């Protein structure tokens, strides 16, 4: 068993595009769930809109990749608007049902063969990277050290991802530490009380839904820049995994989602390397390597349960400021 390789593979995921994508999605979810108390169970749908918006703009309309980024974000904002206007007046648990249902409807629309020309249905979309890669200012070659050695394309995606993440985190940080954030946290606690103080609760919820949705879409876009777009990625489980990453770091924090995503992915990579290796070297004689690769998902589920029960505020959250009140 090659321990060095396992550790290297795990360490490499610290700055993987997927980690950045999760961090952005979890940050968006922190705005929804952690700060505004909106039980958005459809974060996968926002990510899908980002990814498909980006790819379709390039493939179907032949527009530049940066227009694709804009389209992806705007699509998510419009989705938030369409979703929010009717549902934000409903009770919280209804919002959860409606968002999870809407995200699933979106996924089925991307999957159906009726729109195959545009969405690629079950095959998804690929072959839209050319222009994005041509815009890469980094000369061809390998860069980095230790486990973090990538070619110019790898770095290009990562650098754009970092920029997006830092900008998004900065915006969220400023907002939640402003009077705007105070109103939002008030709504999380009791929206009728905030309403009685003359705040347009619905407006704030809609703004929060759009802000978080836009950030999540950015996550989807970064992920689409790195590889292909496929509707099979944007399933409900993705939403659950993003929740796991968010709760791991701390739902009502700005840096929690980032830390949570890194830990989530490093552990995933570590287990997906370690467990099959253990099986191959005969340490786990009672399972096959295929079985070993499902073990990490079982552990993810158990970790999510334990986390919510025993440390609901996450790693970075304030013990007193639990996000679960009602």
């Amino acid at each position: 068993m090659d321990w060095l390789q396992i550790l290297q593979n795990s360490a490499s995921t610290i700055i993987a595009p997927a980690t950045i994508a999760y961090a952005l999605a979890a940050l968006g979810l922190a705005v929804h769930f952690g700060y505004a108390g909106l039980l958005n169970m459809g974060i996968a749908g926002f990510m899908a809109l980002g990814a498909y918006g980006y790819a379709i703009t390039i493939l179907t309309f032949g527009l530049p990749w940066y227009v694709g980024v804009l389209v992806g974000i705007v699509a998510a904002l419009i989705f938030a608007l369409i979703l929010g206007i009717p549902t934000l007046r409903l009770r919280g648990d209804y919002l959860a049902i409606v968002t999870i249902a809407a995200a699933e409807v979106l996924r089925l629309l991307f999957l159906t063969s009726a729109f195959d020309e545009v969405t690629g249905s079950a095959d998804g979309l690929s072959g839209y990277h050319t222009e994005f890669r041509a815009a890469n200012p980094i000369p061809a070659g390998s860069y980095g050290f230790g486990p973090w050695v990538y070619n110019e394309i790898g770095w290009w995606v990562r650098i754009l991802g970092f920029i997006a993440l830092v900008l998004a985190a900065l915006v969220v940080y400023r907002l939640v530490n402003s009077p705007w954030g105070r109103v939002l946290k008030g709504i999380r606690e009791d929206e009728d009380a905030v309403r009685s103080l003359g705040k347009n609760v619905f407006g704030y919820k809609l703004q929060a839904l759009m802000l978080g949705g836009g950030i999540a879409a950015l996550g989807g876009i970064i992920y689409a820049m790195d590889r292909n777009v496929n509707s099979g990625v944007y399933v409900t489980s993705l939403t659950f995994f993003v929740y796991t990453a968010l709760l791991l770091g701390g739902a009502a924090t700005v840096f929690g989602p980032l830390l949570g995503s890194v830990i989530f992915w490093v552990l995933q990579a570590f287990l997906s390397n370690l467990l099959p290796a253990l099986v191959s070297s005969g340490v786990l004689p009672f399972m096959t390597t295929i079985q070993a690769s499902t073990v990490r998902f079982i552990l993810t589920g158990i970790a999510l349960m334990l986390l919510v029960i025993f440390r609901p505020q996450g790693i970075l959250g304030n013990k007193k400021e639990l996000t679960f009140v009602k």
Partner: protein
Amino acid sequence: MSLVRSATPAHHPRRRRLAGAFVAVLAGLIGLQLLVPFAAHADEVDTDKYPYRVSGNVQLDNVPLADVELNVKGNGIDTDVETDENGQWAVGVPEKNADYTVTLNEDTLPEGIAVVEEGNETPNIKEVTVGPGGRVTANYFIGEGTRNVTSFFDVVIERIVNGLSFGLMLALAAIGLSLVFGTTGISNFAHAEMVTFGAITAYFFANLVGWPIWVAIPVAVALSAALGFGLDVTVWRPLRRRRVGVVQLMIVSIGLSLALRYLFQFFIGGNTQQLPGATELPIDLFGSVSMTVIDMVSIVISIVALLGFAAWLLFTRIGKATRAISDNPSLAAASGIDVDGVVRIVWIIAGGLAGLSGVLAAYYRPGLKWDMGSEFLLLLFAAVTLGGLGTAFGAAVGAIVIGLVVEVSTLWIPADLRFAAPLVVLIIILLFRPQGILGRRERIG
């Protein structure tokens, strides 16, 4: 795929596309394997050599056909390919924005089977265009060579019968979900896994142990009830004692759902399995409606179980106590009802009904899989929400409405969007009647 089958080419292609959707979901889940590159299972030729691809499925009545030969021709290539065990194939092609001809070699189909399409002399040959996406799908969803022309009215009747039987099956699971929500406030995502558990235990005893199916099913239902009891004792009751909030409980149930789901995959793998008799041929009944014996037995079992449950809820002491707790838990506790005891029984009943629903679903789909429950979970939530959160009868009504919407909507929309239809209906109904069909409005302040 559905309880009632008929050989009506007028709508069959749609239903088959649905099978394609299931295959795609499966493929998608494999692709999900934490966002690693999309793992293609299809038999692939030249997909490494060329950047673009033509791919597809070949299925007979929703069953994948392996080893069927196809040929893709055009733009300088002439490639042969065979379908894999999932009926899938893919060929790499050099050009996008270009046309290709896909030909299915009918000699390699099982005997007596042909590709049939109305108004098409050579339905085994398809002209496809690889668009700007660089990919195109050419699917062959084949029916048996015979056909009979069915009137629209007959099709509607058939869908309604289908929808009712699907709705009844959903209702079994939905009332348990609703009871649990009503008495404990948990939006239990792991209910899906209780459904799957029923199907898997039935499979274990019937196929692996070799017991007769009529023994395996009651045992599976009993074990599912035991699972409900076990989860209450080990997870939910301790959390009730800790006074954990409902949002937290919901996320705990998501974690439990993930853990159980992958535990099932750990034991039975990623493939679809069949219970004994699931692939039996249907008997023609009336009009275009035909059902297998098992389908009919399923409907009878659903109705009997639902009536039994209704009698329990309405007339027994514990049933009344359950309704009292759903109505007002603290008042019920104050009036001397043993809330913990009733909740335990609710979990047992919810588990048993979910397990039964899972067994029936394994016949309905047909086939059982590690994540089959999560396929229905959203429909269950939709049913419970439609009926008005926490009212068991509302959930049953909601489930039947959803079953009907799923089946009847395929008259107008592609079959692979049929699970989207009830979700859209749900969203629209919530806009006009947020309390659901049978729910009550709440007072503020």
